[in-house]
């Protein structure tokens, strides 16, 4: 298995388009890392440089400590899965899987064994002799993954592989790819703009904006402890709540907010300074006005979306707050309610 080390990697197209801006990333052997970010943030470019399809403007890429920047794609021993699958249309499923092994001059018997094992792995045994156009999108996707894995590459790269599938299949394939990756134990870089995809699949999420890494952390840390408004907003819905430092006690600061006091890790700011806190919509509960405790608010809108109810509420001072709840009691727009907050879920973002 292979460790990937990226240092100050930069890609400039033409004179001025900085697609990737000095990113550094260490991917331990066997880890599943997602590059997450909006379209145009440089994810694909980063992946192409890893695969060798795009030249590197500056910086270095090393596999297990060996610099590969000068190595052409065919010498990098990489398994790549493309968004549109890029299967060889003139070869059967078996032919597609065989191609990489033929390039490696694997003996016939060994080749058959590995192809059969991989067909099993991607559950395509019965389709071995079909051509790509005779397969569904999901099946083509699995051929693409099988073709990348059968060569037992050092690293698996996937560029938005699920973008062309319908919602249900997409969720199935998430689990499928994740399980497969765990079983094979291959170092994997997965590019996506879908935060749910990145969250459910990855050991670590790397959030990118404008060619730079904004934050890299395990999915739950990205969600609960985002470093910036941008990150917080990209990985899910969020309320930004303004407050000020009431007191500092060692590592903890007590912040006065419209929702009452919140304890968060202290930053180097003195008493009285303004702070913005992030609060996820599901950290707020709605209780009837009659409950007598909580912060008063008015329902502005409520939407039913299956598992959850999606509310927007207005506080006394007019501030809007989003709330998601699994409670089945539904408050209609205009209703007076009270909000109760899980005080541990506040997270400081930046000064207001």
């Amino acid at each position, binding site marked *: 298995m292979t460790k990937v080390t990226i240092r100050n990697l930069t890609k400039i197209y033409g004179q001025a388009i900085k697609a990737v801006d000095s990113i550094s990333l260490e991917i331990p052997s066997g880890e599943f890392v997602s590059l997450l970010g909006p379209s145009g943030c440089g994810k694909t470019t980063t992946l192409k440089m890893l*695969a*060798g*399809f795009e030249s590197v403007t500056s910086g270095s890429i090393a596999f297990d400590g060996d610099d590969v920047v000068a190595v*052409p*794609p*065919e010498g*990098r*021993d*990489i*398994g*790549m899965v*493309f*968004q*549109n699958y*890029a*299967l*060889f*249309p*003139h*070869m059967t499923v078996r032919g597609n899987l065989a*191609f*990489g092994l033929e*390039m*490696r001059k694997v003996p016939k018997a060994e080749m058959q064994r590995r192809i059969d094992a991989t067909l099993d792995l991607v559950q395509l045994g019965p389709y071995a002799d079909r*051509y790509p*156009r005779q397969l569904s999108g999901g099946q083509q996707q699995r051929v693409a993954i099988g*073709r990348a894995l059968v*060569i037992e590459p050092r690293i698996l790269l996937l560029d938005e592989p699920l973008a062309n599938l319908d919602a249900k299949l997409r969720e199935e394939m998430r689990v499928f790819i994740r399980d497969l990756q765990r079983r094979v134990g291959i170092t994997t870089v997965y590019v996506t703009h879908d935060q749910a995809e990145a969250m459910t699949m990855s050991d670590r999420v790397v959030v990118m904006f404008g060619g730079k890494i904004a934050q890299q952390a395990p999915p739950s840390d990205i969600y609960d402890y985002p470093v910036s408004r941008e990150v917080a907003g990209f990985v899910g819905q969020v309320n930004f709540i303004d407050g000020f430092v009431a007191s500092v006690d060692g590592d903890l600061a007590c912040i006065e907010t419209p929702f009452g006091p919140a304890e968060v890790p202290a930053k180097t700011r003195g008493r009285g300074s303004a702070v913005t806190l992030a609060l996820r919509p599901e950290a707020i509960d709605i209780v009837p006005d009659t409950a007598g405790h909580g912060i008063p608010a008015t329902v502005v809108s409520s939407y039913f979306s299956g598992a959850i109810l999606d509310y927007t509420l207005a506080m006394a001072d007019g501030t809007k707050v989003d709330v998601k709840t699994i409670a089945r009691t539904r408050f209609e727009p205009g209703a007076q309610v009270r909000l109760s907050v899980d005080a541990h879920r506040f997270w400081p973002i930046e000064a207001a």
Partner: protein
Amino acid sequence: MQTASPGNRPYLLLLPAAILLIVFMAIPYLNILVTSFRNPGQGTPYADGYTLMNYARIFSSPLYQGQLFNTLWIGIVTTFATLVIGLPVAFQLGRADLRWRGLAYGIVLSPLLVGIVIRSYGWTILLGNNGVINRTLINLGLTEYPLPLMYNSLGIIIALVHVFLPFMILPIMSAVQSIDPAVVSAARSLGAGRATVIRRILLPLAMPGIQAGCILVFVLSLSAYVTPAMIGGLRVKTMAVTVVDALLDTFQWPLGAALALMLSAIGAVIVMIFARATRMKWKVG
């Protein structure tokens, strides 16, 4: 992908094309077929009554058989030569990262803008015993006597290759253009070098274009008249030239019709064999 059908009778849309095809293709062909079985006339295109004599004449005449064979030979060599010359050009022009695409198109298509008579006449200026090529070679001292470039099959083939090159390049170019660049990337990441990518990926995927180009050039070469007539002169006659002679000069319509049909039939069989041999299983069914 399915296109939406206009109403529930989409086949009605085929009607105009079908009528055109019947009026302008089937009826003339039937007419030729019937004519080929008519009795030859004296001073008239044909006489009353029907006969197999025209076909018997072809089968017993070494002259006609030789012309037929030579025509097919010219067609095959022309096709092969345009393929060899056109393929690399088409591959370059089909590249996704090509700059000056408009200019490239213009250069490929430009021969088609000049009438075929003028182009063929141009070749007689180049190929003749006193032509540009021979004069140059003689002046350079490379040859003492002019090379025989006109009034033979070689001259006809040279001119036909030039005339038909766009018909080879265009379909291959469009096939190459339709290849997904990611497929090439995929092959490379699986370990294929540039040469292997061409041999294992690009050539097979360009096959529909290669097939179309070859059939097009072969069929056009068989039926070419102007170029073989001007460059072959009286010395070398292709079937098309002989057929026109029979129709206009010697006024033997039944024989001309039989010769034309023989050429078409043999040409069709060769095209069918070629199409069968280059059939792409991944495309059909």
